[in-house]
């Protein structure tokens, strides 16, 4: 029998998940303290350290298209753009940071060539169409190098959103402390744990 085998790279990426670390959301009981809320909200003194104000706004705009506000806040309100700036400033190796910034520039270049103006000046319909093209190419069966940026930005948006207080506590919810119940009706829970 021939059997599918995932690439070594994928196997490496799965390690952390299998060992229980990568996606286990820490949980909090009860209402969040005021200091916590203050820490989360952007202080007036906050300023990006890697992204320019225009780049920051571009990230916030694209992120909000990926996870928009509905009956719960979206990516912009959750501060995904601030999370991205922190990652670029404090975590990414320089080569990866530069690659990300180049990808960001390419978003505007695509908007220019298609609509004669930067991404943020395009109409919501034009933006969604541009992102739709990028998304389709990024997740096509032959995942090309040119899809790297959109895959990465989408991943960061999702991680940034669902690990934020809005994403983890309002859109989804955290598992309460106490018992472990291994096999319960989904209807009794109603939405995914964050």
């Amino acid at each position: 029998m021939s059997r599918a085998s995932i690439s070594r790279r994928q196997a490496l990426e799965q390690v952390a998940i299998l060992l229980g670390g990568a996606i286990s959301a820490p949980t909090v009981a009860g209402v969040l303290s005021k200091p916590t809320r203050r820490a989360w909200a952007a202080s007036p003194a906050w300023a990006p350290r890697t992204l320019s104000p225009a780049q920051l706004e571009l990230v916030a705009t694209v992120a909000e298209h990926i996870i928009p506000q509905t009956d719960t806040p979206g990516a912009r309100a959750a501060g995904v753009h601030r999370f991205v700036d922190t990652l670029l400033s404090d975590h990414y190796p320089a080569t990866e940071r530069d690659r990300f910034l180049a990808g960001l520039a390419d978003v505007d270049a695509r908007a220019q060539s298609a609509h004669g103006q930067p991404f943020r000046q395009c109409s919501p319909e034009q933006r969604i169409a541009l992102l739709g093209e990028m998304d389709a190419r990024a997740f096509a069966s032959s995942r090309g190098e040119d899809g790297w940026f959109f895959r990465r930005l989408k991943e960061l948006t999702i991680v940034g959103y669902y690990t934020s207080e809005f994403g983890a506590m309002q859109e989804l919810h955290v598992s309460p402390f106490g018992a472990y119940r291994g096999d319960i009706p989904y209807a009794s829970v109603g939405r995914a744990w964050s």
Partner: protein
Amino acid sequence: MTTYDAIVIGSGITGGWAAKELTEKGLETLVIERGRNVEHRKDYITEHKPNWQFPLRNARLGVGTQSAREYPIQARTGQFHESVKHFFIKDHRNPYVEDKPFTWIQGDQVGGKSLIWGRQVYRWSDLDFEANLRDGHGVDWPIRYADLAPWYSYVERFIGVSGEHLGLAHLPDGEFQPPMEMNAGEKFVKAGLERAFPDRRLTIGRVAILTQAVNGRLPCHYCGPCERGCSTGSYFSSQSSTLPAARATGRLTIVPDSVVHSLIYDAAKNRVTGVRVVDTTTKQTRDYSARLIFLCASTLATTRVLLTSKSPRFPDGLANSSGALGRYLMDHHFVVGANGAIEGLLDRYYQGNRPNGIYIPRFRNLGDDASRRGDYVRGFGYQGGASRQGWTRGGSEAGFGVELKRKLHDPGRWTMGLTGFGECLPRADNQVQLADQTDEFGIPLLRIHCTWGENELAMRKDMAASAAEMLEAAGCQEVQTRDAYEEGELGAEPGLGIHEMGTARMGRDPRTSVLNAHNQAHDVPNLFVTDGACMASSSCVNPSITYMALTARACDYAVGELKRGNL
């Protein structure tokens, strides 16, 4: 020089046990720890902290990232996250030379790796203790299961182990608290697997996490990430369990921030008489003396101490008349297995973060014809688990906007993963030696040479194929095998299992082993080694509880010998 009855080097899983046993038996005991002090509760600075309070949202800090700059080696393990960074050693404090990739993961604090260990605990059996004798790899263990069984019970009752009784001869049952529950996906795979393979079992992990209170420690509250420290003491660590017991005797002294330079040996008496340490803050040396010394510094750190403790009597390292010291290094090889999806069960879910998975005990080479393999000796077990996909799946599929958000509102389908942990043979050429360089404390570095051999690599093929075969037989879909090993590369290199063991092995013959049946150095009667360095083979099960049982047993023997005037 300050004098004690006993000195224990290291405060992790085995050092904590030695401290508890020796103090409870009446010995004034000094515990020497290279790392900083970590106080139970107070120093669990990330416990219960939600993700959004971490600047990087508790990211995995991978090799090459800015955040792992001081941790180029520690960053290789998937355990290395923003929330637990402070429980791993900064690599400049423990440099070593790698001939081939070998990942040395270390704690650097009181409690050592007991704070961040995997907590899976499985007894060895005579399948393991007789393995070397049966197939000729390594030397025969000087003990058998019957020697250790009462000590396993003794340890289990104290640390608290939850798990299921299976009645398997090769994975003996213990003193178990009620097991944790499986989820619907795991129950599905268990039913299908045990139907297709009546001789195989899928069980909930046996884990040193309480489901019932013990000695003031509370049952697990299922917050999830134990490795941040647990204020309710629900998992076993030195902080929650052994060190408080030792402290209660009034006979415990701990000196943190003190790395051992060498042991002091008196050739006329043929005894170790003390320990020389370097204060990691001031770099000054200090000596302590004692009648009895237990080395519990962790496998490689322990062997490094012995290798650096040279004298005219022992020019190649203390207690090394055999030449076996530093040799027969082992680890479990893993990061190989299979994943699959489960159709349906979409009306089932779970609540709480269970810090445990499932276990499939070894089913190869059990001594009967049916389980015998022609392509390799020894065996492997699987750890794994099922879960419903969470929001992370959104990053690997097309789609965005309201539709994506709505999709991620519900959990995705069930998936099941199995990861094999395979036994590694003891081979003389997997060894550590002293390098020419010294570290910032003036202690020679280890040079580590360790590779997987043909037996491990042949076993890995079966580990991947059997995992896939079982998942398919159980009814999983889209089953895929995986193996992160590539020769000379990172991914599944030796050391990554963090089950490094051997290099000061036990044995019957002083000419071929360092320690006797009581973890006592053949050459130096008042010197005992009870951490992973003592192991003569590796089994395929997680080793820590065996280290604990060996430590308790060795302490009992050592104190008896001391009282009889033999040390």
